[in-house]
């Protein structure tokens, strides 16, 4: 995308009545050039400031423990070692955490994204008594802080014998999520109803309308929700933290913490573990960011 963006001018200069182009005055042009240069400088500096803690994290993950607290600090690790990643893998139940996290993400996406699509379709494209009242209820749940119910949920899952497993975190997802339902519903609303009617005349039932008409036209919104969902589940902290105790059953996002409590603070291992945890979402965001922003813009989240 870098090569197609050459100019900052928002649109072609307005034309005069005779079709002649209105000339941009020289002063305005150079002022624009100055503004553009300033934009680059601020962006470069800003992204540098935001990236530094990360670069520091990467650096530390390749450093030997005894070199960590040198003054002045080493910019480039010397010696440059990979041992921390090996240690990290061997000291904690790291493989378990990754498997658990992947499991949670897959369950979460299967539940939240898919079910939210169904529910959003119901709200956007069908009529039934009480529909609007239920939708207001969805909006209200979005405002409800999830932590208010943590105590009764803990009690409930204890009664069910689900504590210290992935179920208290995964099962509630199988019923959709208010926020994703909202995003998808807003997007589905923007598609013309004639599409559904045409498909129904052709003999499609509601499920077929959803699968063959609505979903193919809603790819940006569905992709946005899927990305949100992936990141949300991968990084979920509070609920797994409260509901799961056994180290082997933790997810990666919670497990990282274990390095600190168990071994004092082994920064170099913590940093290595953090990098492993950040890597998948980084790759995803780098490639998805354009789709992602467009998806949010299209879904009209703001209203």
């Amino acid at each position, binding site marked *: 995308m*870098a090569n197609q963006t050459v100019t900052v001018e928002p*649109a072609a200069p*307005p034309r005069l009545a005779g079709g002649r182009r209105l000339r941009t005055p020289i002063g305005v042009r150079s002022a624009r050039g100055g503004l*553009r240069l300033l934009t680059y400088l601020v*962006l470069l500096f*800003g*992204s540098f400031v*935001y990236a*530094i*803690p*990360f670069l*520091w*994290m990467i650096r530390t993950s390749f450093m030997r423990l005894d070199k960590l607290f040198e003054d002045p600090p080493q910019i480039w690790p010397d010696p440059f070692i990979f041992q921390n990643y090996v240690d990290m893998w061997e000291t904690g139940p790291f493989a378990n955490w990754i498997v658990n996290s992947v499991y949670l993400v897959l369950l979460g996406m299967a539940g939240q994204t898919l*079910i939210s699509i*169904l529910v959003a*379709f119901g*709200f956007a494209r*069908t009529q*039934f*008594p009480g529909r609007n009242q*239920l939708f207001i209820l969805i909006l209200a*749940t979005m*405002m409800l*802080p999830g*932590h*208010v*119910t*943590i*105590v*009764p*949920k*803990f009690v*409930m899952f204890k009664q069910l014998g689900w504590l210290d497993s992935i179920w208290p975190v995964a099962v*509630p997802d199988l019923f*959709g999520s208010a926020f994703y339902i909202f995003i998808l519903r807003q997007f589905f609303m923007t598609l013309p109803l004639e599409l559904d009617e045409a498909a129904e005349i052709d003999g499609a039932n*509601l499920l077929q309308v959803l699968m063959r008409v609505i979903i193919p036209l809603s790819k940006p919104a569905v992709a946005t929700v899927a990305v949100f969902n992936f990141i949300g589940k*991968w*990084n979920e*902290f509070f609920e797994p933290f*409260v509901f799961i105790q056994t180290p082997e059953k933790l997810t*990666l996002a919670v497990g*990282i*913490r274990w390095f600190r409590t168990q071994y004092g*603070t082994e920064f170099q291992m913590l940093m290595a573990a*953090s990098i492993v*945890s*950040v890597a998948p*979402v*980084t790759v995803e*965001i*780098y490639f998805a*960011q*354009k789709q*992602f*922003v*467009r998806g949010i*813009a299209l879904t*009209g989240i*703001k*209203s």
Partner: protein
Amino acid sequence: MGVTGVAGPPTGIKQARRNAFGWTWKETQGFLFVLPWLVGFVLFTAGPFFFSFFLSFTSWRLVGEIKWLGLENYVSLISGDDTRFVQSVYNTVYYVVFHVPGVLILSFAIAGLLNRKVKAMAFYRTAFYLPSITAGVATAVLWYWVLQPEGLLNNFLNVFLKPLGVAGPNWLGSTTWAMPGLIIMSFWTVGTTMILYLAGFQGIPQHLYEAAEIDGAGWLGKVRNVTLPMMTPTIFLTLVLGIIGSFQVFTAALIVTEGGPADATLFLLLYLYWNGFRFFKMGYASAIAWILFAIILFMTVVQFAVAKRWVYYEGERSAR
């Protein structure tokens, strides 16, 4: 509900058939689409919600009998007898007051820059967004280190402070600086708000800018008369979500400071967590949850009430 199970009656009488509630087959289908959410809502939101309200009037240690206390939990919380609770409310408000405006302004500015057509956009967006998609624990551990007396932040600050003869503070070890430290840390994760603004900017029709340009508006004029009014719905959304989210700040304090030093970063949710899952005072923790909920609800309602004065919805204007 048994009637809903009738599998596809012939097309001709589809509309005529009605189930026990007097709904047509089509309405029933629509309801069935929504049903999964409704079941989940009852089981995992509404049910626990009311149970937590009940628990907040009791004393219960998770085992043994539930003892009815009436308003006792609330009285000891609101009367100020529990000084740690008062401290946690103060700390949370302190955090919200600085965190929310800071994040809103920062992310607005960054999104504004990123909305310009610049080269290597994917790189900048990723750099600013990355911290927000990093697992909270990883962020917290990283900043635990950044905020050490000889950490990255002080390395940077000392460049300016050394000539003045002072050194950067011991962020996490001082009751004065621990909270500012956590707030600075929170400014690192502006990405989600930034993405919402970026999407908002892209939703502003270009012709408005062209019209403003023809009217002779400069950069500032365009920002004031086009960008800001058109962005008010997004600003409102981020303000509401930001306040709801920041009242529930938890991971940062749990990992970085563990509420310390001397309760200087003890947040409401952390205190709730300790009461519930460390001291096993389920009733008391529920009462704290309800006060937290009441505060958040109050803030949200106030914002919606005030919103009519400053939030501009295009749909409303054209309807007039």
